[in-house]
């Protein structure tokens, strides 16, 4: 029983990481109806920036905040320079651009920072297990950070004028433009925010899996799965989906199929859910207009 609870706990901890990447994906999806395949690689790159800043002597939280600012700028610039001109391009061309970005980030990181594994410090200390001995300090800390991010994103969209404007711009760009919302600027902002959220996820996952250019490849896949499971148009659903995928993956890997097939098993479960509920567990089914 104790072992089982441990598996659930570490599932929740990794699930938190999936949840934050899924949240970043869903945010961009809501604003643009594109899935950013380069999201994970952007997060990985941000994590390297954080590590570089720390090696330059900045304390953890200063580097953390600086990384968020840099990542925000990076996401915003990418949107403005690369994606805005392609706003009317076919979907397939957009996916092509995302794949190009993925390759560029991955390879540039390998070139600038080498492919060797690097340790990334955790701000929550080493220490023994806490909270009934179920979580390591980092697991607990990173789960709290994920929840805090989720809460602030929710509050931002729910209670601020800017959040409302962003929702409006995504929901109905033409009408929003007419009532004076700068829709193009909202998209830039959305990309910046998503990049910053991704950066947090990267900095939280790096102490667990070690930092290397392919660190996020697996995470991104699980995040996609989480976003699908929860419903791609529902941020809260994506987060719940993230935690569920983390727990399913851990329990299945430990008790049912063994670690060699845990990825396949998690994916089978998700496909099964989607067959029964194609819009995801919490997603809205959109009726198409005739």
């Amino acid at each position: 029983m104790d072992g089982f609870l441990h598996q659930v706990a570490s599932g929740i901890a990794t699930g938190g990481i999936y949840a934050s990447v899924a949240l970043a994906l869903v945010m961009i999806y809501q604003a643009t109806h594109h899935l950013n395949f380069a999201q994970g690689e952007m997060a990985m790159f941000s994590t390297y920036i954080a590590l570089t800043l720390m090696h330059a002597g900045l304390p953890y939280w200063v580097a953390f905040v600086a990384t968020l600012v840099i990542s925000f700028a990076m996401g915003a610039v990418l949107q403005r320079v690369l994606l805005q001109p392609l706003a009317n391009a076919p979907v397939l061309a957009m996916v092509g651009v995302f794949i190009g970005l993925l390759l560029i980030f991955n390879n540039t990181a390998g070139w600038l920072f080498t492919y060797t594994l690097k340790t990334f410090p955790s701000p929550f200390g080493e220490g023994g297990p806490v909270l009934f001995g179920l979580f390591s300090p980092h697991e607990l800390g990173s789960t709290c950070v994920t929840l805090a991010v989720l809460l602030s994103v929710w509050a931002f969209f729910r209670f601020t004028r800017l959040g409302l404007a962003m929702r409006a711009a995504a929901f109905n760009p033409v009408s929003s433009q007419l009532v004076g919302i700068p829709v193009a600027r909202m998209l830039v902002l959305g990309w910046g925010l998503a990049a910053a959220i991704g950066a947090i996820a990267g900095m939280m996952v790096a102490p667990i899996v070690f930092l290397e250019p392919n660190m996020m490849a697996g995470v991104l896949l699980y995040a996609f799965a989480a976003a699908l499971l929860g419903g791609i148009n529902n941020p809260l659903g994506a987060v719940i989906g993230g935690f569920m995928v983390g727990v399913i993956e851990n329990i299945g890997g430990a008790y049912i199929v063994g670690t060699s097939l845990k990825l396949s098993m998690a994916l089978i479960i998700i496909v099964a859910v989607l067959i029964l509920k194609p819009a995801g567990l919490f997603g809205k089914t959109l009726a198409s207009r005739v």
Partner: protein
Amino acid sequence: MHPATSRILLIILVAALGVVPIFAASGYTLFQLTLVVSYALSVLGMNMVTGYNGQISLGHGAFYAIGAYTTAIMMDHWDLPYWSTIPVAAVLCAITGFLIGLPALRFSGLYLALTTLALAAAVPQLLKYNAFTDWTGGVQGISVFKPEAPFGLPLNADQWLYLFSFAVALVLFILARNLAVGRIGRAMKAIRDQPLAAEAMGINLAKIKTRTFAVSAVFTGVGGSLAALAVGFVAPDSFNVLLSITLFVGMVVGGAASISGAVFGALFIQFVPNVADQISKAAPGAVYGVILIVFMFVAPAGIAGLVRRFLPTAKAPARSG
């Protein structure tokens, strides 16, 4: 240009593509061209389901793997002749494609893209799985010997393999072209553009979509079979997510919903990485990514789209796009 003239030119061009490399290229170059043929078939398969039918698949590497492993297992375990493995691979892929097409009916757009991406991600794990090791050779993979030219033809193994692959691909390309311009092809495009209208016109969406998936799996799977023969080796890690993404890139760069686009795309995914490697040894992937993005800016409808724009005679009779 008169239609008959352009048809004759096309036939001459195709014949030249089949014959010239055998004598003009050798060794490694010929091997690369054989791979281009297999990629072209696989990209064409992807094009069927994604370009023509609008079901975005990022998991066609799975069918490629099924084709390649079918060939390898049949030749390694049962000593069957290499040519007999191609129809078996085609049938197996058709069945798998059809079965995957069934749940795919429930997903639309990006949901399907991500589910198929997940399929692609699971392939290496499944190939390495212990229970299948007797068949798949596990992490070690399987070696495939290179077939010799039959009937005492004065060709070496490389030359014969190119000719064989080219012939197989040619037959399938002609079939694909006929499918695309005919009634079924129009139904496929109608489903992509206006599913509701298509259904109202009496097109059976489920039937066409699942069968398109099956046909597309056949093309990609046969491409995988040919690639296994050319490379002479199959191993789980060569069928990773990157392969599926590469095929997708080939389709987008070549031009979606275009038969000739598959050839352009195959040339791109085979040779542009080499070019990128020559430009920068340090970060070839980044150079490749930049080239890819530039392509998307210059030619959002792919190389075939560019060709159509600059060579009006090359325009297909029924507008595809």
